[in-house]
């Protein structure tokens, strides 16, 4: 298979050399752990423990609040201290279960799922509280239950890891590739008609080589080299690159016969089924020029972000900006006193905030935002429309197709905050749509 790609996109400085050769280290947290009841898309989970309860690692502490929701498990053994609103990564205060870690890491007994029936596998995934670990946090059991399973012909593992700096998925592919393949095989067992494709950007040739070798004996799995270009790992771009099918915002990947899961998610599926282990750990890249020793850590969910920064040796210099996720789509944190949830893929610490130094000027109509937009939009026009508050026109110009990838703001020579306006426009236009219904 040749190099696959999509139209648009760009090549930011990738910064991966800081952490790509650092093996995954286990990090054990201290003190209290904080578990937000909403770490996923959909209804918040409902707490099923109360203050004073003793819990074990792997014990369910909150129950999914509906079909599109996810269970939450404790990552340590200890005592439930309180349930109260706490500041989380997205800047909102939401209800969290706070557990005092007793440092014993006493774990519940896992019961592997031996059945390979469709419903048992999906049930195991649901029970384990697995959500999309790439960042969106969509409950995986919902993804694995499409309306017409027989129409699914391609399971894509998103191993592009196109966000600069993040190397968590890369380390997983290098260290535990067999678990990735096992997870993918489990997903494939749900869809007998489907083939599995592991899509990897060609800036990770060793991962491509390793997985290609391991998949030689897997008739249903192939490894696809993707052109290194941001946002290659955006779901719609990836589906287009791998299958040539285009979907828009009103469609699901399943409409194109695809299910897309990222590397960490597939590994979580493997652990949930073959080990019976729920999702309460994930690999996090802690990096950036402000960090003493950037690296990749296996982190218990609920760990405080400030602890992670300490785990990476603390700061060389006081950072100006810290980000949860990558530099293109990640969320800037005002404080490090937030818990790492299931979707926390990276803690990025920059000693200088590039954006603050950029004063926006007038649009010079260079058209770069149009040529990089993976959704084929005109960000300069749309941001103007959004800034003027004409959200009906914003929708009419397909503004809701925006995937908020950040390419337009990145490339703009006038340093205009296009993505920010696009995000506002999209939110308001979608609200307008709901109102009309």
């Amino acid at each position, binding site marked *: 298979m040749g190099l696959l790609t999509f*139209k648009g996109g*760009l090549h*930011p400085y990738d910064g991966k050399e800081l952490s790509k050769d650092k093996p995954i280290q286990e990090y054990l947290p201290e003190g209290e752990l904080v578990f937000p009841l909403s770490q996923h898309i959909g209804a918040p989970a409902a707490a099923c423990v109360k203050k004073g309860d003793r819990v074990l690692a792997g014990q369910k502490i909150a129950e999914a609040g509906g079909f599109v929701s996810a269970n939450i498990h404790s990552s340590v053994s200890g005592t439930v201290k309180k349930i109260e609103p706490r500041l989380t990564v997205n800047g909102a205060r939401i209800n969290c279960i706070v557990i005092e870690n007793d440092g014993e890491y006493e774990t519940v007994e896992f019961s592997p799922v031996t059945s390979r029936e469709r419903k048992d596998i999906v049930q195991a995934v649901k029970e384990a509280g697995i959500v999309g670990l790439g960042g969106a946090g969509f409950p995986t059991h919902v993804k694995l239950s499409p309306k017409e399973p027989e129409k699914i012909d391609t399971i894509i593992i998103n191993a592009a890891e196109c966000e*600069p700096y993040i190397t968590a998925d890369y380390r997983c592919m290098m260290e535990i590739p067999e678990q990735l393949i096992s997870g993918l095989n489990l997903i494939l067992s749900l869809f007998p008609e489907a083939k599995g494709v592991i899509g990897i950007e060609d800036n990770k040739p060793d991962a491509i080589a390793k997985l290609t070798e391991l998949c030689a004996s897997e008739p249903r799995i192939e490894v696809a080299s993707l052109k290194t270009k941001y946002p290659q790992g955006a779901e*719609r771009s990836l589906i*287009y690159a791998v299958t*040539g*099918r*285009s979907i*828009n*915002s009103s469609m699901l990947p399943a409409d194109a016969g695809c299910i897309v899961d990222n590397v960490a998610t597939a590994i979580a599926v493997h652990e949930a089924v073959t080990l019976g282990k729920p999702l309460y750990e994930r690999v996090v890249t802690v990096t950036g020029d402000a960090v003493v020793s950037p690296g990749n850590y296996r982190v218990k969910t609920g760990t405080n972000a400030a602890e992670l920064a300490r785990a990476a040796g603390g700061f060389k210099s006081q*950072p*100006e*900006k*810290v*980000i949860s996720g990558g*530099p*293109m*789509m*990640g*969320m*800037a*944190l*005002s*404080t*490090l*006193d937030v818990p790492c949830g299931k979707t926390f893929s990276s803690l*990025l610490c920059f000693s200088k*905030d*590039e*954006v*603050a130094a*950029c004063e926006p*000027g*007038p649009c*010079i*109509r*260079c*058209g770069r935002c*149009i*040529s990089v937009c993976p*959704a*084929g*939009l*005109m960000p300069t026009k749309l941001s103007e429309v959004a800034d003027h508050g004409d959200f009906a026109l914003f929708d009419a*110009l397909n503004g809701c*197709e925006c995937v*908020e990838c*950040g*390419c337009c*703001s*990145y*490339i*703009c*020579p*006038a*340093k205009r*905050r296009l*993505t*920010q306006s696009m995000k506002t426009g999209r939110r308001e236009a979608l609200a307008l749509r709901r109102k009309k219904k």
Partner: protein
Amino acid sequence: MNEQLYHVSANPHVRDKASTKSIMFDVILALMPATVFGFWNFGGRAIVNTILSVLVCVVSEYAWQHFMHKKITTGDFSAALTGLLLALNLPPEVPFWIPVIGGLFAIIVVKQVFGGLGQNFMNPALGARCFLLISFAGIMTNFSSQGPGTVFDATTSATPLAALKAGEAVDIQAMFLGNTAGTVGETSALLLMIGGAYLLIKRIISWRIPVCYIGTLSLFVLLFGGHGFDMYYLAAHLFGGGLMLGAFFMATDYVTSPITPRGQIVFGILLGIFTGIFRLFGGSSEGVSYAIIFCNLLVPLIERFTIPAAFGKGGKKDE
């Protein structure tokens, strides 16, 4: 709470290095070979006029923004670029007040009155040139020169295109290299193409406008030029007049050309057609400047019909 708070902003948290300033500077850099050649070719007055033109543009922009209580943006090199382009579009021996009036017209009337950078609907330098051409036709069409590179007097100072139109023979090699009569910056097709190549390689401009423009004009000249497939005649049209300067540096002006990729193709084709009409059937032998400012006015219309198709609405990938 007495802890450190970090910067918060919407994604993305990194930015490309290119800025408005760096782009304008790159365009000025790309014009340098042709400018320096023009200085060498046409001598002292061309140099003084160029400096004057750049100064007037920068100072008038500064003054306007100062007195209108607007942010001063002269540091972005945009006004300087306008001044340089205007100077390159003037005949070598024009009196000193010509670049002064031209610079004022370009910056104040064409650019600032309409809202400044990004808002003007017409290329400021070309708007000023056409204003000067109409107002001071005699001065603006006298291409005599006392320069060290080429000495033309008033009787033999016809530009190659004017000679071509009159049915005289022209020296293609001289036109390619630039030893001909013309405006300060337009004579050397070679050096302008080198500058254009630099802009293409640095991706400051795309191929669409220059290629469609030059391609369409070639076709037009071959079809309607009355010389059949006479390559010599075609080459004279391509290397003569302001075509290379116009196609690479003026038609590609971001502000006054379409932002949509398909629109740029349409724009280039229209430019070729209008330049052809003006050159072959018009009263003057030149046509580039008028074609560009005319097509500048069509840009909003072109953009309206060339909005790109959103991903997922435009059909499937061709295998």
